[in-house]
């Protein structure tokens, strides 16, 4: 008989990934984030994640804002839903076009990303946190193993809430060449086609008008790198949307 075997426990790497993800998640929630879950091929996982956080099975644990996003045009639905500081958690294979597109765009939306899946891994850096089962069997999503992963994520996140000292925002970064804080090419998503060498662009810091002469023409949905009020390059070569 073909078996998707019971996993042989949780490896040290995945356990460490789960721990880091839970702390990041608790910090974002503590700062007021909403978590948006998506699972295009196995939609019930998105809904299980949302109900887990909104209506905990353990009485006394706080309800946290989590919403499953389902149905067609998922990238558009996520785009209109998320706010800077939010979290997107996708459950999907590495080849899922919608989830891949959402993960690529998330830095422009100021969103922290978590990607749960199995089989071949997504490229390094495809999401902020990757929780992965390397088992190539395509039936893994229906064996309860993903359920274990997001149950653990929920449990660990609530442990983090018992350590409020660790949930405070990190001290302001004063490093002048820090990529996060300086203006060294932030990812932006074009909101409307450029006109007269300028376009409205959404970045993690909000919506701004950006000079596009170096990258024209750009259209709505294109990803660009923004530096000092100018789009200095395109970032959507691999985008398949």
């Amino acid at each position: 008989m073909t078996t998707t075997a019971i996993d042989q426990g949780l490896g040290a790497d995945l356990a460490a990934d789960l721990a880091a993800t839970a702390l990041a998640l608790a910090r974002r929630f503590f700062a007021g984030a909403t978590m948006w879950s998506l699972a295009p091929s196995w939609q019930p996982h998105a809904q299980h994640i949302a109900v887990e956080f909104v209506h905990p099975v353990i009485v006394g644990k706080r309800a946290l804002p989590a919403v499953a996003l389902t149905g067609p045009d998922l990238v558009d639905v996520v785009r209109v839903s998320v706010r800077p500081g939010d979290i997107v958690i996708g459950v999907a294979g590495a080849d899922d076009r919608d989830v891949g597109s959402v993960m690529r765009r998330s830095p422009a939306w100021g969103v922290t990303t978590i990607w749960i899946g199995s089989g071949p891994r997504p490229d390094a850096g495809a999401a902020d946190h990757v929780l992965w089962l390397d088992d190539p069997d395509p039936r893994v999503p229906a064996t309860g193993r993903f359920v274990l992963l997001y149950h653990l994520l929920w449990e660990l996140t609530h442990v983090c809430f018992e350590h409020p000292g660790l949930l405070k925002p990190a001290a302001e970064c004063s490093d002048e060449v820090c990529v996060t804080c300086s203006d060294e090419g932030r990812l932006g998503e074009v909101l409307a086609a450029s006109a007269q060498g300028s376009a409205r662009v959404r970045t993690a810091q909000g919506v701004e008008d950006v000079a596009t002469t170096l990258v024209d023409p750009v259209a709505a949905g294109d990803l660009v790198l923004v530096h000092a009020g100018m789009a200095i390059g395109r970032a959507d070569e691999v985008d398949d949307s």
Partner: protein
Amino acid sequence: MSQESATGAQQEPTNFLYPFIDSQEDDPTSLLGDLATSARAKAAESFELRRTTLESNAELVVAAAAEMARRFAAGGRLFAFGNGGSSTDSTTLAMLFARPPIGSPLPAWSLTTDQAILTALGNDVGFELVFSRQLIARAKDGDIAVAMSTSGNSPDLVTALREAKHRGMYTVGFAGYQGGAFAASPDVDACFVVRSQSVHRIQEAQGLLGYRLWSTVHEQLADAS
């Protein structure tokens, strides 16, 4: 369920136990180590429960799969349902039957996917009837009902299983703890009990049991043809 703000960490019920230490804690290294250790311990617990659950339910899986395979072969269909997280797990199982990544599809649906029907029934006739009324409308003698629950006591599921049995369906119940009302009910033909006190661990084991039930149905269908 409380709707307190996510920033209300100072109201965490266990906080009074360590009023000073927590708010001054600033190095996450030790917490991250504890979290990873805890994750591995819980995963090991889940693994052990899944292993013993498959073992103790092995004969029942074969018997239930044989009856389900007979019914599918004769044109029977499967309806799955549950509440909350168990509703999503029952939907996953229905999807595995209807659109398996490997193998042939069998007719199966989740009864929680249509919000219009759920809210119409919940509002007009009461939540206890949200699944049984759908079975009255759709199910026939020869079909299969699968109810997933951790308590085994949910009134809407108990009611639906009674209706299912009355209509000549083969009834499969998934429960946790000691099996709850499902275990004692004459309306449940096959009751799979995951003997744990943890809702999370129960659901994880039920996921694997459902998967095993699906794969055994396909073995039985292959043997019969």
